[in-house]
């Protein structure tokens, strides 16, 4: 309010003519909204932060109660704060034989270890205490080995992780591209031409999505074994493509219906063939829808668990069942699982981020314009 009185009506408000942006009460509203947004983001991001912290915890720290959430490096960052002198009953610092104060870790602190990360990439075997002592002294072990030796483990070879990750990339990536490409062509046909029995076809396509995957895995398993595509990339790509097609056809049809057909017709009479008009006119305008559909299909194929568990064993096994079945030497290796999960998040986040300009309008199905 003060602002309006000072400035008065004679001099123009230069910054903006939008009252909702300059009015003090409106600006307070913006601040409140920003704060609410930050709080929501913090709540949403908490699991991810927790996951990230778990990747650098030892096994006891990962399951400690109360939970530990301040990492420190021994003799490094934050260690001064995290290591506090142990006190005697009378409140004086406890000293060791050399007269140095005895230090102990604060309850909320944990020391950073790369166990989980190293463990993810290598197979490990447990050592006897004698072997451990002997190996520790041997100079032929590198830094990665030493991290695990401290836990009494020795590296026996590379793990399957890289392979599984590559499988996921190949299978999810290829099936997404195929599902969107075929979906686009089918959706275009459904959107632009009078096809006999169009509603029935569309319903049939949608109905393939109605059964939960678990119900059909057994028949598909038998079928795949007969066809010899059990545990193959082709088999999984085929399956995910077909599964995603229903989603992609329906989504893309919605987006293409929104593009007035006059645009292509203008291109047609201007001398472009149907295919050229599709490429030059329809594709750029459908970018939003294609981006949204791509992300939805990718997320499904990337996260799919049940089919992969049943239809792959080794060659084509993808990440989700692999992560779930990560076993350490005697117990769940939380740090390894957390590291695998973190790496697993990255591709989807990257793709979503790369397509973000198109997504806002895309995922609201065109409700927000321009």
């Amino acid at each position, binding site marked *: 309010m003060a602002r309006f009185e000072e400035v008065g009506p004679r001099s123009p408000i230069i910054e903006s003519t939008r009252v909702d942006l300059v009015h003090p009460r409106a600006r307070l509203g913006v601040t409140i909204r920003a704060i609410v947004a930050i709080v929501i983001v913090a709540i949403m991001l908490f699991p991810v932060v927790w996951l990230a912290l778990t990747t650098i915890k030892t096994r006891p720290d990962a399951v400690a109660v109360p939970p530990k959430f301040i990492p420190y490096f021994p003799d490094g960052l934050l260690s001064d704060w995290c290591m506090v002198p142990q006190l005697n009953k009378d409140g004086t610092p406890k000293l060791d034989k050399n007269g140095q104060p005895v230090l102990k870790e604060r309850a909320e602190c944990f020391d950073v270890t790369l166990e989980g990360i190293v463990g993810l990439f290598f197979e490990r075997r447990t050592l006897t205490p004698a072997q451990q002592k002997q190996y520790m002294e041997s100079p032929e072990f590198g830094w990665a080995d030493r991290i695990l030796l401290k836990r009494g483990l020795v590296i026996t070879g590379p793990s399957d992780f890289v392979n599984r990750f590559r499988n996921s990339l190949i299978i999810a990536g290829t099936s997404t591209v195929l599902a969107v490409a075929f979906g686009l062509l089918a959706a275009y046909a459904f959107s632009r031409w009078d096809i006999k029995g169009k509603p029935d076809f569309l319903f049939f396509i949608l109905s393939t999505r109605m059964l939960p995957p678990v119900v059909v895995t057994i028949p598909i398993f038998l079928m795949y074994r007969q066809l010899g595509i059990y545990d193959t990339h082709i088999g999984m790509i085929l399956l995910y493509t077909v599964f995603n097609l229903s989603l992609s056809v329906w989504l893309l049809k919605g987006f293409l219906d929104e593009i007035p057909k006059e645009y292509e*017709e*203008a291109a*047609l*009479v*201007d001398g*472009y*063939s149907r295919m*050229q008009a599709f490429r030059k006119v329809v594709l750029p305008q459908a970018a939003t829808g294609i981006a949204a559909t791509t992300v939805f299909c990718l997320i499904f194929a990337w996260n799919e668990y049940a089919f992969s568990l049943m239809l792959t064993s080794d060659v084509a096994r993808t990440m989700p069942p692999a992560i779930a079945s990560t076993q350490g030497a005697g117990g769940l290796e939380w740090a390894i699982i957390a590291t695998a999960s973190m790496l697993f998040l990255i591709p989807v986040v990257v793709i979503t981020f790369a397509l973000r300009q198109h997504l806002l309008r895309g995922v609201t199905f065109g409700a927000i314009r321009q």
Partner: protein
Amino acid sequence: MSHVELQHITKRFKTVTALRDVSFEIQDGEFFVLLGPTGAGKTTTLRVIAGLEQQTYGHVLFDGEIVDDLPPPDRDIAFVFQQYSLYPNMSVYDNLAFPLRAPMRRMSEAEIRQRVYQAAEILRITHLLERRTSHLSGGEMQRVSLGRAIVRQPRIFLMDEPLSNLDAKLREALRVELKHIQKTQGSTTLFVTHDQIEALTMADRIAVLNKGRIVQIGNPTDIYDRPATIFVAQLVGVPRINLVDARCDDGTISIVNSSVHLPKPVSGDLPRTFKLGVRPEHVQLDPQGEFVGQLLLIEPLGVESILHIKVGQQSLVCTVPGMTRHKLGEELRFNLVRERLHYFREDGIRIQV
């Protein structure tokens, strides 16, 4: 040379028949207007000619050759759509260049540039070339749409109500411009409109379309002075033609429920009851006039005034130049211009006299 002919075109959609047995010819260099109310089938006619819609029966001929099976790109026509024809994510220049860049034309960028600038100059939109089309006003958009048509020399221009989304002033300006361009370029044009003024002012010939049927084809004078049906008579002319029930007894025509009696025209036969049409300008005020009526309502328009005159139970509309000094309720005497009266049968067909 471009000569377009439609032969007995019928177009049926699932439940509606949009065109019934439509035939007409457009001569080279002609400005041909298709006039009809909304839903008459005008757009469908254009789409059939463009090849965007396949007719159910009949043939489309270009220069005497049947082109029914030719897809749109090969028909070499330009189409100005009623709306939506500009690509929103391209600049005006790219929009204008788009038809020329079609792979089948294999035109060099230099030539494209030259043609685009030429078209832009004709339409006076050179200053807009770098703009995005989403930032244009309605009039500018429609100019660019026209530009997209005139950058090439197509066989025929098809224009689907290109002026109907503009405000009155712009429409008037573009109307004149369009006619001028068409005449200087000598291009063959099929122009669709529901606005009778556009039709009368621009057309060399007009085809009137109603419910998918051609009602009348003729030059503006034919259409205005000799409307083939009541529908045409009412469609063209502002204010509307006066249409009253009339009777014919023993050589005298009388307007039902009024004191107006006229001698029957010498030639031609009239049925006992029919409709009499009188254009407002043919109701002429005259202090010595034959008929008398009472002034019911005045609509002053500046350049002319519209007077509603009550004659018995009937009311006739007449126009007088400028503003009028007559008062409401005043007794007025007037004449009807006998040789300009229109006679229609009860079913709406013109009776030739």
